[in-house]
Each structure stands twice: as structure tokens, then as C-alpha cells.
């Protein structure tokens, strides 16, 4: 289970960033008092435009950055106090985390397996399963720098799941993938859910969220603007599809300002 309680993340901007954003305020609130709960056996989607605070939220959950205010519990462990325990429980994938291009997928898989203290036999089984599922075997021994974008993404997904984590956090998992690979990734996330795992993804692709997610949290300007199943969101906004629902909510939030 992931419980986010009143998460606020404020970045300090340097002079260059202030100039770029045309602001004189040296602080930027990326996430503003966000609370949500995601449970095992569901796929929770963070939906929002670029810069809404989705990735920041996921990075806070993954202990890469620290919340300015609020608390996050991952499988009962608080991210700041027990960050190592949290990292044991999660598999985290984002486009700015990459695998070392000098090594092969096979090497990186073993390397992270050992860092996660996966027993040797178990590691072999996991490799067989994941490499087969994602069709990695044919390029497993090639250096990662020689792989195509799609292959790299598949490799990164497999490596992030090496320790069979209970909680899977994927930031825009289908970004840069062709439709066939994207479909297989989405299928795998459903499989994880069926195994009782908690999957939390961020996306700005409405159709993906609509098909994949059990519940959706709409994030606008760092705040949770709405939350619920697709049906609930459609009913709330009296719309027929998620894109229209999103724009209704977006207008409402922006109209308030």
C-alpha cells in the first residue's frame, strides 16, 4: 500500500531557472498538499499535463527526493526514515533513469539482482521469465548502447522488476515505445496487478489511462483535482470519455484562479 499524506514539494530555483520561468520568486511548488492512497491489487494512474507534479510525486515515493512537507508510507515504511526498506519494496522506472550503456542487459540484470540480494537460483528464474516475456533474450548480451530505444526500454523494465517487487512505480512506462511493445508492457502491468501487486503509473495519455487504470488521480498544478474510477470521473463531469472529463476538470480548476 502507498499512502501519501499532505505531500508538498518545494524546489529552490537557481538564477538561471528563475530567468527561464520569468519569475522573481526563487521557490517553485511542484506538489501542493497532495494526499492519496493506492492499494495492493490495483493500478493507480496519475494523470496530468506536463509539469503537473506527477514525476515529482513518484520520485518522492521512490526516495530519490525528499518531501518538503507531509509523509509517504510505502508498505508501512516512511520514505524519509526508512528509505532503504522502501527501496527494497519497490521497482521504479522513469525515463531519466538509465542502464549503464557499457554493459549488457544480462550483466545489469544480475548486478541489480545482487544489489537486491536475490538468491542465485531465483535470479535465474526471474531472468528466464522476464527475458522471455519481453523478448530480450536475442539481445541480452549486446551492450546497451547498441540497443534501439524500444529494446532499451524493455531492458530497463526487466531490470527494474528483477527483485519481484510488491510495489511497481512506472513513470510514463510506454513513452517512446511502438504500439506492439507498449501493448505488451500494459499487459504485463495487468499481470502484475492480477498477482496482487500494487502498480502506480503516471501518464498524460488519456486512452492509456482509460484502458489500464483502476483508479485515476488527476493532478493539475501539483494538486489532486479529482480522483476515482473512470466511470466515477465520467459521471462526475457528465462526459463520455476521459479526455472530455479531464478538460471539464481542468477548466474548473483553472477557472477558479
Amino acid at each position: 500500500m502507498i499512502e501519501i499524506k499532505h505531500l508538498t514539494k518545494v524546489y529552490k530555483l537557481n538564477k538561471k531557472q528563475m530567468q527561464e520561468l520569468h519569475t522573481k520568486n526563487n521557490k517553485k511548488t511542484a506538489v501542493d498538499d497532495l494526499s492519496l492512497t493506492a492499494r495492493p491489487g490495483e493500478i493507480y494512474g496519475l494523470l496530468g499535463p506536463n509539469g503537473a507534479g506527477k514525476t515529482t510525486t513518484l520520485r518522492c515515493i521512490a526516495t530519490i527526493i525528499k518531501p518538503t512537507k507531509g509523509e509517504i508510507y510505502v508498505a508501512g515504511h516512511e520514505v524519509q526514515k526508512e528509505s532503504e526498506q522502501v527501496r527494497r519494496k519497490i521497482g521504479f522506472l522513469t525515463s531519466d533513469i538509465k542502464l549503464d550503456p557499457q554493459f549488457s542487459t544480462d550483466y545489469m540484470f544480475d548486478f541489480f539482482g545482487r544489489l537486491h540480494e536475490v538468491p542465485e537460483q531465483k535470479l535465474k528464474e526471474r531472468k528466464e521469465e522476464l527475458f522471455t516475456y519481453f523478448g530480450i533474450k536475442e539481445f541480452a548480451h549486446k551492450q546497451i548502447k547498441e540497443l534501439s530505444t524500444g529494446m532499451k526500454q524493455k531492458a530497463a523494465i526487466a531490470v527494474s522488476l528483477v527483485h519481484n517487487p510488491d510495489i511497481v512505480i512506472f513513470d510514463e512506462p510506454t513513452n517512446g515505445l511502438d504500439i506492439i511493445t507498449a501493448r505488451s508492457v500494459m499487459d504485463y502491468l495487468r499481470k502484475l496487478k492480477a498477482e496482487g501487486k500494487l502498480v502506480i503509473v503516471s501518464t498524460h495519455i488519456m486512452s492509456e489511462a482509460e484502458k489500464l487504470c483502476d483508479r485515476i488521480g488527476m493532478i493539475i498544478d501539483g494538486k489532486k483535482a479529482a480522483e476515482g474510477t473512470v466511470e466515477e470521473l465520467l459521471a462526475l463531469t457528465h462526459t463520455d470519455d476521459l479526455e472530455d472529463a479531464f478538460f471539464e476538470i481542468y477548466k474548473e480548476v483553472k477557472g477558479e484562479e
Partner: protein
Amino acid sequence: MRGIGEIFKKEIARVVKDRKMLFSVFLLPALLMVGIMSLTSNLVSNMEEDIDSHVAVIYVSNMPESFQTLLDAGESAYDIRSMKEEEQIKEELKKGEADLWIEFPENLESQVENYREGDRIPQVKVYYNPSEDYSSAAYQEISGQVLEGYRQMLLQNRVGNLEQLTVFTVNSDNPEMVVQDDKKANGKALGMMLPYFITILLFAGAMGIGTDMIAGEKERGTMASLLVSPVKRSSIVLGKVFALMVISGISSLIYVVVMVASMPLMSKAMAGTESGMKMEITLEQGVMLAGILIALAFLYSTLIILFSVFAKSTKEASTYVMPAYLLVLVIGLMSMFTSKAPSSETYFIPLYNSAIVLKGILSDEVTWMQFASTLLSNLALGAVLTGVIVKAFERENVMAP
């Protein structure tokens, strides 16, 4: 602890698996060093040979017959030119077209022959151009050997037996004149250069890989994958520091071996030092050397990693590390040219003390106390820096900007 080992292994594998990296870290600098050394020594000996084989162009005014006979009898060939105007000769000397002008006084022979006590002593004037290699070589030879021989000859003519004029000689028959501790003398020549090269090469070897290990990983986005794995930040830091230590240690060891092996090449270039270039190291010296090198490798690795942590790219990291490298260069130079015995407090100044102690170990002049304080102060500073690096790893604006 498990994390340290895994990360260490991966960093080593990164270098070992990459042929280009292997070549550029371990082999290229060694090859370059040998290449530069043999090139300089060749150039120097070529130059010397060229000067030796050059036939000096010499003007002689008022040449005495006996001098002409002496020149003809001598082994060296000279191009004796017929006299010109004084100004013209000086101009040729300046341009390097002529090498020497010997101006004898008129009737030198009769002046010498008819000399009485109280008469003015005749003077031979030799003009040369010290900024021309040929000219100064000719001057050395003519004034030092040929004219000296001529003087002896004329003197002998006057007094008959030269031995009457010799009161005593210095070391004309004393093969044991040099009294020194050979071990110490060997070490002195080695001790002057080796510590300098060792410290610099150790740092240089660690620099490229160290910046890549941290800043490069940040740049490529691979650091974040380590940061979300269940490994302590301190384990990541230590794994990398140890790997860098080993890599730079091995590379500096290769350089030292290559350097000692190519000593004959070097000594050819630096004439006069070849007698001191024998490598004889006792077990005690070896233990001390190894200890200091390990401590230095550790300290340098932490220094380089510390600078790299705050950089966003390898390029930025190299810029940050450069001042530290210059500092190491200057400290090396300082130790190379300090002859005064260092005070005991000096042995507690990290970096500097290691250069002095290395020098001391090689010339067999160091005490275990000095060795221990050097070892400990360097290790302590390295440990402090490691602590700072771990703290920096925990700061998100440093690691995940």
C-alpha cells in the same frame, strides 16, 4: 557491505571489459612516457653529435708558427680562415657564420722568449658567441685544451722541466676519492624524481576514470538507478572509492615499472646521473612505499570523487578537479627541490608529507614515526572526505537535480 563489493566489481569490470579504456588508462600514458623519453634523449644525443662533428670556423690574427704546428699535430680539424676586418669578423660571430676569433699579440713567440721579470705578460684574446652552440663548444675546446696545451709547451721551452713548477697535485692518483653510501646516493637520484612522478601519475590515472564514475554516471542517468536500489549511499561511495583506488594504483604501478625499466633511456638524456639510477629496494622500504602509495591512492580518489559529486557532467568535473591536480603538481615540485630537513610537524600535513616521505623512503632517511604520521594523516583526511561525499550523496539537489 554487500553493496560495496558489488559496486566495486562493476566499476572494475567497466574498465577491464572496455579495451579502449584499458588502453587509454594503463598503456597509453606508459607508451607516451617512454616515447617522449627516448625522443628527448635521441634529440639531445643527436645535438651533441652534431656539435662534435662540426668543423669550427676560426679566425686567427698574428698566428705564431709554433701554434700552427700544434694545431696541425692535434686531432681536431679546424677551418682556419684568412683574416678580415675586425668588424666583419665580429658580425660573422654574431650571425653564427664564424665560431671563434683568436687574437694573438704581435710576435708572441719572441715576447715569451725574451721575457724578463717585471715585463708585461702577453695576453691572447679569444672572442666567441655564447648563444651559439658551435661557438661556445669551440671556445671550450680552444681556450680549455688547445691554448692550455700551447701554454704548457711554451712554458716547458722556458723552464725545461715542468715538474719543478708543480708543488702538489690533487687526486691525480686516487681511485677511492668518492666516499659515499651508495644506497643513499642511489636513492637520492631516484628520490628526487620518483615521488614527483608517482604522485602526479597516481592522480592523473585516477582523474579520467574518477570523474566518469560519478559525474559521468549522473550525466548518463545511470546514477539514479543505483540510488533507488536498496544499497546505502555510503556503500555506493565506498565501492566507487575503492575501485578508483585500485585502478589508479595499478596504473601508477605500471607507470613506475615502465619508468624504472626505461631509466637507461632517461639517463642518456640527463648525462651524469646514470651512476645513481640503480633500483635497490629493501623489504622495509617496499612495505613503507606500498603503505604510502595506498594511502595516497585513497586520498586522491576521494578528492577526485568529491569534486565530481558536485558536477553535472564529466566536463564540468574535470574543470573542478583541475585546481586539485595543479596543487598536486606544485606539491610534487616543492618536495623535489627542498633540501632542508623537514620539521616533525611537516609530517602531519597530508599530501605534502607523502611527497617528503616518499623521497625519504627512497634515500633511506625516514623513521617509522614519520612514516606512521604521514600514513595516518593521509588516511584520516581521506576518511573525512569520504564522509563529506556520503553527505553530498544524501542531498537531493546534488544527486537528483
